[in-house]
């Protein structure tokens, strides 16, 4: 088939590939094709260098010293927070809480927002699409409080059944927690519409944005999200740093998640006065080098342009779906009308784990297994899938190489 025009070496995007040193290596004798971006994306030189530069020149603890290095470290740490605020169009910098990643962001909301509010008989609504990190924290808080976890169904294509979800939002529901983009199927969930419906019933909404922020412009105010969680390492930054965006009024009313240094104004053994936002939620010495790298990643993404990234990833995904669809014996899992980055599939009766080994032999990195979404595997009646996930640095050659490697798998297995 023909390659969509924007997938062809669009100059800016093709040039970007050279910014990612990890992509320039050979694996098992072949040039690396990295299609495991939904698990973790590679970092550009800007990020790698900024982390190293920070450690080499500016490292000290933040918010604690009057000396020069401490001030520099604080400027970098807080500068990255400003960059993140701008990226997602939050109103205030104090609405940006640093966490270890999406998982910790969601746990923070479960324990600090939900736990004090939930009573036996209350409910939290999620969807069948969710990653374990947007299931288990709610199960834990429901266990702690006697609340009920309700799961909205999806259809065979992997689309949340919006009407049924909205039908679940009754007066007992205290929170809707929903993914923006499915990590397994790539489904883009119409979160804006769901948030509007939830707000119509005064139900706040947490959006798991881990798979959205790397691939599209996200505007938390346009969406109306009350909480929005994402991870640094999936958006070309370092691991161990992530973000919880929360509306100021909600964050203000929440107790701290962890106690320790930095989250207090005054401590005596009789009691403690908690610090202002966002520091109330940032106990202990934070991941300063991670914030430095995340700030660099935001700067890099803005320089490439998220509109352009979204267009390229969208067109390349369409090309990948078409090419994969031509492979004999393939079953595409996740065929929603709105998708980003991700395609899951099975090939004949070859177990995904065997597929992963065979394509790795040809230098191609894909994820195989349950993708931390076992309920979704049960829905499709499969033990796992193979999953190829794109980033803007991927191109049509990468997709062609994947398709060729699947032919090799069919040959070995006689499928």
């Amino acid at each position, binding site marked *: 088939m023909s390659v969509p025009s924007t997938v062809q070496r669009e100059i800016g995007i093709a040039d970007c590939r050279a910014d990612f040193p990890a992509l320039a290596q*050979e*694996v*098992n*004798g072949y040039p690396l094709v990295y299609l495991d971006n939904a698990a973790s994306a590679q970092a550009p030189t800007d990020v790698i260098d900024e982390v190293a530069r920070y450690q080499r020149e500016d490292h000290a603890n933040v918010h604690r010293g009057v000396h020069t290095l401490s001030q520099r470290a604080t400027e970098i740490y807080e500068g990255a927070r400003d960059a993140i605020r701008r990226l997602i169009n939050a109103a205030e910098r104090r609405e940006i809480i640093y966490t270890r990643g999406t998982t910790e962001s969601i746990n923070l909301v479960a324990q600090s927002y939900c736990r004090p509010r939930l009573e036996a008989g209350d409910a939290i609504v999620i969807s069948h699409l969710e990653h374990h990190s947007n299931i288990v924290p709610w199960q834990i808080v429901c266990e702690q409080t006697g609340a009920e976890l309700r799961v909205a169904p999806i259809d065979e294509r992997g689309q949340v059944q919006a009407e049924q979800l909205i039908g679940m939002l009754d007066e007992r529901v205290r929170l809707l927690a929903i993914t923006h983009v499915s990590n397994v199927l790539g489904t883009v969930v119409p979160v804006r519409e769901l948030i509007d419906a939830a707000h119509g019933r005064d139900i706040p909404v947490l959006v798991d944005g881990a798979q959205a922020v790397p691939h599209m412009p996200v505007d938390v105010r346009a969406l109306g999200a009350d909480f929005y969680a994402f991870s640094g390492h999936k958006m070309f930054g370092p691991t161990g740093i992530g973000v919880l965006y929360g509306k100021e009024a909600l964050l203000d009313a929440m107790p701290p998640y962890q106690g320790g240094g930095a989250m207090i104004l005054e401590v005596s053994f009789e009691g403690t006065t908690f610090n202002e936002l966002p520091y109330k939620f940032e106990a202990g010495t934070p991941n300063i080098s991670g914030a430095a790298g995340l700030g660099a990643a935001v700067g890099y993404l803005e320089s490439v342009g998220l509109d352009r990234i979204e267009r390229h990833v969208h067109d390349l995904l369409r090309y990948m779906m078409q090419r994969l669809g031509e492979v004999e014996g393939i079953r595409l899992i996740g065929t929603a009308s709105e998708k980003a980055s991700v395609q899951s599939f099975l090939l004949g009766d*070859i*177990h*995904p*784990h*065997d597929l992963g*080994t*065979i394509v*790795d*032999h040809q230098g191609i990195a894909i994820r*195989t*297994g*349950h993708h931390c979404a076992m309920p979704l*595997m049960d829905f499709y009646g499969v*033990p*796992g899938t193979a999953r190829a996930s794109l980033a803007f640095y991927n191109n049509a050659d990468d997709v062609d190489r994947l398709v060729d490697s699947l032919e090799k798998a069919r040959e*070995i*297995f*006689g499928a």
Partner: protein
Amino acid sequence: MSQSGITNEELRELYKELILDHARSPRHFGKLPDATHTAEGINMLCGDKLKLYLRIGPEDRIDDARFEGSGCAISVASASLLTDTVIGMQTRDALRFFETLVDRLGGPSAANEADADAAIDLGKLRALEGVREFPSRIKCATLAWHALSSAIHERTRPATTE
């Protein structure tokens, strides 16, 4: 793993015909209604999940063995080969097979130690030795064997390869 990465020969060695045959047509597949010992094996990495059934007679002889579950070609073939191997065997001999196999699949360095235990001829289980070049797949090959050890020792928790 070899310095230059995985070669085509190594890939063929992993998926040799005997392995593919047992993966496609696993022997002794299904429940064993009169099992005396059972154990589950779970490989968290790739979601392999199998249940092993043994009927152990009064003389500690494994009179019958079956398994069910789902997994990759390597784990299913390994379980199939296991049942083929241990039926008719004394439990202590089956456990020696388990120990020898786990040792030999432990990676390239384990090859040297294999001679030390020359008393055990792994026979067609040698077909599993291809995993030595694929560290991420060793757990697939040993999962059923860990379940065997658990079943014989009557442990109640599912076996893992950790």
